[in-house]
Each structure stands twice: as C-alpha cells, then as structure tokens.
C-alpha cells in the first residue's frame, strides 16, 4: 500500500480532533490513515488539455472524505477516476496509480465493469431509471446475479431501501415509477440503488446540490449512517456540509490538491493561504 507523498498531508496532530478515533487509531499519534483508496500522481487529460496535475490523496475506509474547491478545479474529474467513468468520455486519458485494496485499478487486467460494482456512484442530479422503484433498486443485483430467486431479490431491495431511509415512504408503492418520487426521495432511491450491490466505496458528486435544506439534512444523516460501513468520497460546494459530515477534507485548486487532512484541522487551521481564502469565502 502506498502512502501519500503529498507534503500537505504530512503527519500532524491536534487535540480537538475526533478524526483519529474514527479511524480507530490511538490518539497519541495521528499519521495519515492508510487509504482504502489511495491515489498517487494522478493526471487526467481531456484531449490536449490537462485537468488534473499529479494528484495524490489517501481516502480511508469508514470515513467520509470531502473534496472541496472552486468550480472547474477538477473535483468531478478526480471522482470519475476512482470508478473509471472517465473511460466513457471520448478523448479522456488518465495517468498515475489509484490503489483500491492494494490493486491498481488502472491496470490493464482490471475490468472497469467489475470495478464499478465495487465502487458505487451517486450523481449531482438524481437519475432514477424509467422503471419502477423496485426495479431501480433491483437493477444492480439483477445484472450482477446477486440474488438466486425472487425472495432474495426482494430482501436485497428492502434492506437497501431501509438503509437509504426510504423504505417507510415507498413500501406501499414499490411498483410506482422511480421518477414519480420527489427530488430528495429520488436521490435516496439512487443511493439505495448504489448500495444494493454492496459496494466498498461510494462516490458522491454534489449529492445535495439539487435539494432543499430538509432533504439535504436527510441525505447528510444518511451519509453519516453509511460511513460505518463504507469508504465515502464526496464532492461538495458547501463548506458547512463538508464540516458537518466529513472526517477528512481535500482542497483542490486548478487541478491540484493544495491541502488535505483531517476536516477539523483544515477548517480551523489551514496551512495554505489559498485554502484559508477559499474556506472563508474570499474566492471560489
């Protein structure tokens, strides 16, 4: 497993952090937690244009890592590297290493289709399929053959909807179209769809930006719940949201990671002036 070589995420400790506890490490020493996903020297090109410059970042298991930074700085691009969705963009090229559980996902031998079953993704705008609520959640288990019979499938759907906190609202109308739900419900539906295949990592690209404050609060609560089982990587434009739900934060600027570390530290004691400016709302 490679440790990050990024100097901005060097060892450091502060007393007020509960980050280390969450990572299950002793409070005495706070090294950078070993990443479930760890990126080293990742560069991305769209045609001739370089969008990411040698990004290295550790994203530990059972934590929420927030990616923040001004618009167009490459957060979504980086997120799409982790489930190789950049492969689907014509002209996109990824360099560098991204290790998932000790395996470089950019290796030739890795099938992106299988990788994406392990790395789920939730998009900015809820995108339920034009199918029933049940079929939306059953989609992944069906194509990956996770259920041997109908009863098993129904179990998976039910437990996924329960974990996504949507079960109570839709239990009596599983056959209604997924698009008939409200925006917030749809976003929880696609989260249920993502966790139905029991991924190890969940990527979220601004999952709350299309939602009102109440729906946002529900999703944040859900993310906090899910943290106990998954490695969650989330892009957000809301500093408050990053502070509320994430344990680690990486600040992106012009395609590079400027600073990364425990969330409370980044927010209370940023070391780079650009981070400070961004967090305090002076640019971006």
């Amino acid at each position, binding site marked *: 497993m490679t440790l990050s070589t990024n100097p901005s995420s060097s060892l450091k400790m502060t007393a007020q952090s509960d980050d280390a506890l969450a990572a299950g490490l002793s409070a005495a020493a706070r090294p950078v937690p070993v990443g479930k996903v760890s990126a080293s020297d990742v560069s991305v090109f769209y045609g001739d244009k370089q969008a990411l410059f040698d990004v290295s970042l550790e994203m530990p298991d059972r934590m929420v890592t927030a990616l923040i930074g001004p618009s167009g700085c490459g957060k979504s691009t980086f997120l799409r590297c982790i*489930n190789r*969705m950049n492969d689907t963009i014509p002209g996109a090229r990824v360099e560098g290493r991204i290790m998932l559980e000790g395996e470089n996902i950019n290796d030739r031998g890795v099938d992106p*289709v299988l990788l994406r079953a392990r790395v789920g993704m939730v998009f900015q705008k809820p995108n339920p399929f034009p199918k029933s609520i049940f079929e939306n959640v059953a989609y992944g288990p069906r194509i990956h053959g996770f259920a041997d019979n109908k009863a098993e499938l129904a179990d998976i759907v039910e437990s996924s909807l329960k974990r996504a906190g949507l079960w109570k609202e839709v239990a009596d109308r599983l056959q209604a179209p997924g698009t008939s739900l409200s925006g917030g419900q749809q976003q929880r539906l696609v989260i249920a769809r993502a966790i139905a295949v029991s991924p190890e990592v969940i990527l979220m690209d601004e999952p709350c930006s299309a939602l009102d404050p109440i729906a946002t609060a529900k999703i944040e609560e859900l993310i906090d719940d899910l943290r106990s089982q998954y490695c969650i990587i989330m892009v957000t434009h809301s500093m408050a949201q990053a502070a509320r739900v994430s344990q680690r934060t990486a600040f992106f600027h012009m395609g590079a990671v400027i600073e990364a570390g425990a969330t409370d530290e980044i927010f209370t004691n940023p070391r780079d002036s650009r981070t400070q400016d961004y967090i305090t709302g002076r640019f971006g």
Partner: protein
Amino acid sequence: MLIWIALLGLILFSVTAYTAGRRKVLSAAGGRSRLLHSLPGYHGAYLALWTAAPAIILLLLVGMLGAQVEELILRGEPPAAVSALPASTQDVFYNDVVATATGGQVSQTVYDGALGDAFAAKLAQAHEIHRNLITGVLAAALLMALAGAAIAWPRLSADFAARPRVERWVAALFLACSVVAVLTTLGIVASLVWESWRFFQAVPIFDFLFGLTWDPQIAIRADQVASSGAFGAVPLFMGTFLIMMIAMTVAAPVGLFAAIYLSEYAGPSVRAVVKPLLEILAGIPTVVYGFFAALTVGPLFRGFFNDIGAQLIGGPFDSLGLYLMQVQNQMALVAGAVMGIMLIPFVSSLSDDILNAVPQSLRDGSLAMGATRSETITRVIMPAALPGVMGALMLAVSRAVGETMIVTMAAGLQARATINPLDTVTTVTVQIVTLLTGDQEFDSPKTLSAFGLGLTLFLITLMLNIIALRIVQRYREQYD
C-alpha cells in the same frame, strides 16, 4: 404588364412613405428618438403598411376573381342567336370568346352567320371589359394607397404607439399565410372527398371496401364504361400490406441496430462520417431504388429461386420445384426488400435522434452501476426510447404504404389477394397511377375509383401518422 408597373409604383410609394414617416416623427421629437414612444422605424413601417396593404389586397382579389367577374359581365346581355343554343354549347361559345380575347386554348367550332356576328360583337365587348377593369383597378389601387397614407399620416406623433400596431400587422401577415396553408390542404381533401363520393354513387362503398376482385374495365368508347368492371379493393390493400410487411422486416431491425451503433458505440469521428452518409442515402430518389430493384435485385432473386426449383424438381417436393422454376423477375419480395433498404436510413436517422434524446445521466447511472454497454442499452436506453422508436417505425410504415415508384417497377401489376412474397402483386398507389395515366374520360367509375383508393389510403396513413405523433409526443413530455 400594367399590373407589374402598378406593383412597382406601389412599392416605391410605400418606401417613400416609410422614409417620410420616419422623418416626420424624428423631427417632431427634435431628433431625439428617446422622446418617442416607438422607434422612428416603426412609425415609417406603420405609414408604409397603411399605404401598401389595402392596395395590395385589392390587386390580389382582382387577380383571383377578375376573370370570373369579366365572364359574368360578358354573359350579361346574350345575343338572340346565342340564347337559342343549348346551355352546354353556350358554355363552349363563351369559353371561345374569352380564350380568343386572352390567348387561351380555343375549340375547333366554326362560328358563321348570325353566330359569327355575335362572336365578333362579344369579342369586342370582352376586350373592352378587360380594358375597363384594368384601368378601374389601377385607379382604385392608387386611390386606396393615397387614402391609406392620408389616414395614417396625421396619427404619427411622438407619443403615438406605432410599435404594437406594426406588431399586429405582422401577426396578421403570418396568420394569413398559415390560413392559406390550411385552406389548400382542406381544398385538396375536399376535392378528394367529392370525387370519391361520385365514385361511390357508381360503385357501392361496401363492394369497394370488401370486394375480392379488382378488375376495372378499360373504356374503349365513352358509353361502354363500367358495365362490368369489378372494384373490390381488398387485393390492392393486401398487396400494399404484404410489401409493407416485407419492407419493415428489413428496415426495422437493420435501421434500429444501425441507430444503436451510431448513438451508443460509434466514436465522434465515425459518427461525423456515417450520419451525413445516411442522410444522403435518404435523399436518393425512389425511382433510382426502383430501377435498382427491377434491373439488379429482381433477376438476382429470380435466378436464386429458379435454381432452388431446378434442384427440387423430380424429388419429393416436385410441385414446389415447379412453382419455383416459374417465379418471375417481378415479385412482392423484391419490391419489399428494396423498399426496406430505402427505409433503413429513414428509420435509423429518426431512431438515432430519439436515442440521443435519452438523457446522458441515465447512461452514466447504468454504467456506474457496473452494467456493460449492451446491458445499458437493452435494460435502460431501449425501454426509455421505445415509445419514440415505435413512433419512428409508424412513420416508416406510412411511407412504405404511400410509396409508388419501387412497386411499379418491381412488383408487377396483377391485383391478387395473396400473402405469398414470391407472387407478383400490385398496390393501391400503383393502381392509382395506372388508372390515371393516359387519356381517360374523367367521369367513368374507372378513373373515379382512383379517388376512392386515394381517399382510403389517405385515411389510413393519416391514422398511422396521428398515432405515431401521439406516441412521439408522449415520449417527449417524459423528459422535458
């Protein structure tokens, strides 16, 4: 000639009005257009519209109705020699007078004696009426232009609301154009219905719709017509249906799969080449497909089936072999297959647009779940696009039903109620063409039956199009 000069004068006049109107309000506002309610151009346009529009409307009306009015006046006081004639001969007489006066087609009747005198008198009168009408109309147009300008001119002032008024004129112009389009369509349908009605008086509608034999008699003499013709349209509609089915069997899968390849698999560079290529294919005239069918595909298919027949003869399938040996160049299969090829670009181009309208977020969502491309297509994209694709196929069907050229050249002319693709068949459109080409009396049931066929076909394609548009629309609403 005079009319054109008048039109030119009118245009010059209204251009002058435009500049004069502008200048008037500008000077009223002391040169500062900020003080005006509407920009100076609107005032100019308002004045120009009032100048030109009434006169132009008058000229258009005269252009459309002038000839009728002239003939009405001409028939006003008939000479005794003419009123003695039977009504139909009177018509010929007046037609000849008008035709001689305006340089049209004259019948070969010779007018002499009292009739000759009457002819000369009426001819002189026709010339005079024409002259008077033209001068009268030109004078009236000039007066109207002046009157229009005189009405509009005093209204122009700094706070006159010219802008919304010009807007209303523009709206009226567009309305007029769309009314023309609608009226033309209605006119065509009305004439179709009228002629069909005449046909259905000679042939009962029930016999036409459900009769099994189509054998319109050829009229040798006018009094011999349609005593024994059979006008059962079922064989024609069966032929149409058979060829349409064959065509869709070719066009639907190939066109659809090509569209899927284009929108889901092909890279931008392939797309950039193939998509315009398909559109060029869609622009090939059907007559070209027709001779491709008749000269290339027909003989090829015939040779193929004849060879199989030769193999089978003498064996247990002897009679089938004999039949296959006698297959002709012209058969439903050839026409249908070539029509299918013609429809491929049509289907794939439409379906490609529909597949592209499926939001990218659905594709991303499915791929991010770990689905392969083909799983994404069959499980997410196709279900989402299905209504739209069905609509596209319906449009293709109604094109296949209306297609004439390929069938004329490749399917034969025999009206047969068959579903055997190796038979020669004929279709509704082909029969309409054969019924109406060449010299025909246009009041025999034989020729009128073309209108009956046309009306029925029109109703069928209309229904298909309505259904198709409904489906496509509902699909659109889903994502907008």
